C-alpha cells in the first residue's frame, strides 16, 4: 500500500488530482478496529477542465499511461484496488480540505477526519453506514464540538439524533 500512496502523491504533485484523502472503510480503520474491505476508497478534488467540467477521465488516462488497469469501478494500483470518488457535494469538499495529514510506512498521506466520516455515513444512510456510526461512537476519539459544527453546516443534526437515540 505504500507504493499505492506514493503513486497518489505523484498524481497530486503532477496536478492530475488537486487533493486526495482516504475515506470509506480504510479511512474508518484509521480510527477504529480493522474493518473488512476489499477496496481503498479515495476521495479526490479534481482540477476543472478549460470548459469548467469535472471529470475522472484525465485521472484514469494518467493511471493507464503508468500501466495500471481498471476493473469495474476500481483501478489496480500496486496490488490495491482503488476506487476514486470525486467530491460531489459541500460535505465531501470540506472533508477533503480538512483531512488529517498522516503517513503510512513513511509515505505521506491524508485520511478524512473521523467526524467527517461520520457525517458522510449519515448522509449516505445505508444500514452499514449506521453500523459504522455505532462503531465510531464506541471506539473513536471524537471531537464532539467539531462534529456538531459539521452536522449543523451540512443539515445532518436530525439524522444524527435519529441514529443516536
Amino acid at each position, binding site marked *: *500500500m505504500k507504493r499505492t500512496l506514493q503513486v497518489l502523491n505523484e498524481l497530486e504533485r503532477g496536478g492530475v488530482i488537486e487533493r486526495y484523502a482516504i475515506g470509506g472503510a480504510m479511512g474508518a480503520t484509521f480510527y477504529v*478496529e*480493522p*474493518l473488512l474491505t476489499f477496496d481503498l476508497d479515495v476521495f479526490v478534488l479534481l482540477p476543472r477542465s478549460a470548459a469548467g467540467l469535472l471529470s475522472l477521465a484525465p485521472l484514469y488516462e494518467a493511471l493507464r499511461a503508468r500501466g495500471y488497469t481498471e476493473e469495474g469501478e476500481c483501478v489496480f494500483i500496486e496490488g490495491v484496488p482503488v476506487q476514486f470518488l470525486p467530491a460531489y457535494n459541500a460535505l465531501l469538499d470540506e472533508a477533503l480540505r480538512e483531512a488529517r495529514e498522516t503517513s503510512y*510506512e513513511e509515505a505521506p498521506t491524508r485520511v478524512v477526519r473521523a467526524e467527517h466520516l461520520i457525517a458522510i455515513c449519515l448522509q449516505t444512510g445505508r444500514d452499514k453506514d449506521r453500523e459504522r456510526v455505532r462503531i465510531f461512537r464506541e471506539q*473513536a476519539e471524537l471531537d464532539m464540538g467539531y462534529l456538531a459544527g459539521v452536522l449543523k453546516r451540512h443539515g445532518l443534526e436530525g439524522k444524527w439524533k435519529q441514529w443516536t437515540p
Partner: protein
Amino acid sequence: MDTLKPEIARLFAAKEARRHKLAALPFPEKVRAVVRLQEMAAPVLRARGIKVRVWKLDDRVV
C-alpha cells in the same frame, strides 16, 4: 428482561476490550490486519460467486 450470566457478561466485556485494543493499533498494523481479514473472507465470498481480490502489500513478508 433476561440478564446475562456473569461468565457470559465477562466474555462480552473481554471481546469489547479486545476491539478497543485493536482500535488503538498503529495504522500500518491495522492495514495488515485488514489484509488478513481479506484472506479469511475471500474463499467464502468466492464460493458464493463474489469476485474479490486480496491486496498485495509491498511491505509484507510472506
